[in-house]
């Protein structure tokens, strides 16, 4: 499943309060490390883990309200939600760590 961009704060609220575990990639167009890791995030979204986890992305400049709500301080930041609550956060482009957390949550 391709990674979907979240386009509004309302959409964000709906998504994180759904049944499935959600992971959001908070990225910026001017951020080099984001460019490095987003193809890997996309790749992961195409594997079996997408049955348990829904993959989204948020451009922090376009969606300031979402970014402020989530207190984003550095990019990329990956936040995992379940039932409206944050269950994990990864700051920085660490493909190994990202994969580890995703595999753990999808198990």
């Amino acid at each position: 499943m391709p990674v979907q961009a979240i386009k509004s704060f309302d959409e964000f609220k709906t998504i994180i309060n759904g049944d499935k575990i959600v992971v959001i990639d908070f990225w910026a167009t001017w951020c080099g490390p984001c460019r490095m890791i987003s193809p890997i995030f996309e790749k992961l979204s195409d594997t079996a883990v997408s049955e348990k986890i829904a993959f989204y992305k948020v451009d922090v400049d376009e969606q300031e309200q979402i970014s402020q709500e989530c207190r984003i301080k550095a990019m990329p930041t990956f936040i995992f939600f379940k039932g409206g609550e944050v269950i994990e956060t990864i700051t920085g482009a660490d493909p190994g760590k990202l994969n580890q957390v995703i595999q753990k949550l999808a198990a």
Partner: protein
Amino acid sequence: MSPVAETSSKASADAKIRNVVENLAKINQRLGEADPREILEWAIDNLPGLYQTTAFGLTGCVTLDLISRISSDRAAKSGEAPKHLVPLIFIDTLYHFPQTIDLANQAAKHYGAPMHVYRPPGTSTVNEFEAKWGTSFWEKDEETYDYLVKVEPARRAYEELGVRAVFTGRRRSQGADRASLNAVEVDETGLIKINPLMNWSFAQVDEYVKANGVPYNELLDMGYKSVGDWHSTALPGSGDAGERSGRWKDKAGKTECGLHKDYFKFKLVAEKKLREAELARKDEAKDKVEQAQDGQQPTQQDVAPVAA
């Protein structure tokens, strides 16, 4: 090909290889101070079953580019259609960075180089691999993982393609046991390994890439020293500085872009200032026009509207 022709061409290949192995010391003496092109040309002229196995690191890309030049120069000389003289072998572990896969496809196309891709036995996508072996298999059984994604596919490639000789990207200046590299080596399986870049420094490799617009892995610009499977490649900034680390263009660190604490606040303030400056400019312009109209010389001629 008839069985007789096949046998004799294999026999002739064997003879050529034997000749190289028997004269190794002399060959290495001759090529001791040779530059990459000379070593590559020698290999192309003397070695049957010659392939370039590469993961498209910087030296691999340079080697590919040089082979391309040699190929087109020779074609031009003989008046034949250009043909890339050394085929590529790419071992797709299924866990390469997407950027590496893109580069492999892009480079093969760019150079018109035939590329043979080999994947783990029985599984050609990461989903198939994980269905069979589970996720994060490299953590559970590193040896078997390496065997499945690298060792077995490479061995199968060499067998299926009749590989007798390969290029490596090793260089003497990489130090340790590479400091005494020879141009041509034979490994325990009888495979001939050629090190065309052995006499070049990293700076020379880098310079060649820049001077010739060689396509390379963009991850290298992001500070990665070397680029392997994405789950296990050391991130820039961790461990030794090394040849290529610290090349992030962002100031705020190598794996993330830090935000000022009050980024959004500052952004709002900056945008407000921009708007105010814009309004101030507009007001100024309006004032000027009004001044001009109050009995002063017109500062502008009336211009006929431009046709749409």
